[in-house]
Structure formats: C-alpha cells, structure tokens
C-alpha cells in the first residue's frame, strides 16, 4: 500500500508529502528517538508525538516510509521546510498513537 493510499484510508492530514507513492510495508510506534533509531524498519509508517529536527533525522536514518504525528501534533514552518528538503513524508492526525496504530495495523 502506498503512503498516499494509507493516508486517505486513515484520513490523515498531509503536512509534507514529497514521496506519495512510497510503499508502506510495516509500522512502528515510539517517542524515544534513540530507541526508534534502533528498531524502526525501512518502509515503516512511524507514529510519534515528537516534533523536532531529530524526528526528521531519525526518519532519514531509518528510511521509514512516512512519519505520522498523532494526538494533534503538527510541524512548524521551519520543520516543514526541513522535512521537504530531506524528502520525508509527514502526516498528522488527532487520533492517539494507540488508535492510529491499531487502524494502520488493520490496513497492512
């Protein structure tokens, strides 16, 4: 399933989608960035409540398919520009990490 298709199915708000056709092959939920760095897999949809430069860096390092910011978290202008520059797909949702994770898992 593509990032775009998943976002539509989960009704995610697109914040920055430079690679809409990227394939989502799995999922990971976590906010402790060092832990995510060691455990998220390439192609995962990564669900987190964190929003800072390091989130974009970890997304690049782990090569996740997209970042889903849960619980209403968004990116400011500067972080949006950074995500765009680094080609990181970022979405937002009002759902909790648990709820959006459960819905995403049902899709995959």
């Amino acid at each position: 399933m593509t990032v775009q298709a998943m976002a539509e199915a989960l009704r995610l708000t697109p914040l920055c989608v430079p690679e809409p056709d990227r394939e989502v092959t799995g999922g990971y939920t976590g906010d402790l960035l060092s832990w995510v760095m060691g455990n998220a897999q390439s192609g995962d949809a990564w669900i987190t409540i964190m929003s800072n430069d390091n989130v974009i860096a970890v997304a690049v390092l782990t090569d996740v398919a997209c970042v889903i910011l849960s619980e209403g978290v968004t990116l400011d202008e500067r972080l949006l520009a950074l995500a765009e520059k680094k080609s990181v797909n970022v979405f937002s949702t009002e759902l909790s990490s648990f709820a959006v994770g459960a819905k995403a898992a049902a899709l995959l």
Partner: protein
Amino acid sequence: MKELSLNILDIAKNSVKAKAKLIEIVIDEKDGWRRLTIRDDGCGMPPEMVATVTDPFTTSRTTRPVGMGLPLLKLAAEQTGGTLSVKSSQGDDHGTEVTATFAMDHLDCVPVGDYAGTMVTLIQGSPEIDFSFTYRREGGEINLETAQMREILGDVPLDTPEVLAWVYKSLTAPEQP
C-alpha cells in the same frame, strides 16, 4: 536513550575518535540539578563545526548523513528544562568539553543508569586512554582514575578481565573504592 549512561558512552566515543589521551567524565548532582560534563584533550573542532554539532544532520562520520549523539543528548537535557553546551579548541590547550544539565525532578528526566557498565566498556575499548570518572551526589562521591590504577598495576593492561571486574565492582560498591 533510556539511560544517561548510554549517552555518556556515545559522547565519550567521540573523544576517543578525537584521539584524546585523557577523558574526564563528571556527574554532579546538587539542588535538584544533574550536571554532566565530558571533557577531553583530543584534537578539538573548528568553530564552524561547534556551531552545527547539535544539528542532527551534521556528523564527523562519512557513512551516514546525520550524527545523533549530541542532538539526542541535547534533546534529553532540554526535555527536562536543562541545557547543553559544547566548547572546543584546536589551539595549544586543544580539546572539547560537553556540558548537559537536567532537572532531576522532571518526569522526562532519564535515570543515570549503569554508569559502571559504561566505564568498563570505555576502558575495555580503549585501555591506552586515561579515564577520570566522578559521580558526586548527596551522600557521597564515587571516583575512578585509571592513571592511578596504572601506577599500581604496572605492566598489567587495564583491559585484563580481572581489572575490569574490579572497576565494575568498585564503582557499584556502596563504599568508596
């Protein structure tokens, strides 16, 4: 990182890479604040690198586009209301000093964790480098100086299993080593 000890390991490895001869690690807990200082006499960094070193997209490694050691330590400190600062010089008194402060009563303040394991790992990985470790907190101070150990041990290398076991035990013993 789940424990500050893992951050310490990460940052001290930078000092090893900078060809330090002495790496000093101090954890000082006072008035609700934990201050971590990692100081080395390595090659230091140019000012333009110091300015960007907490940017996750900067690294001294060529294998990946981002370096996460200092950015993650900065995040860990700032999450508690603390700060991170980096000072470095390439002159006569060359070296780098990283200082991070943490509000200990903040919910997101990670525990110090297995500092003894971190010191054993560091000494084992670089037995030729001298390490100075001090953990000062209410109720006492723990101190380890590999330079002193060397004087006593003579030709016995610091990465001898018995020596490393002693290091671990002395750092975790309730009394002073």
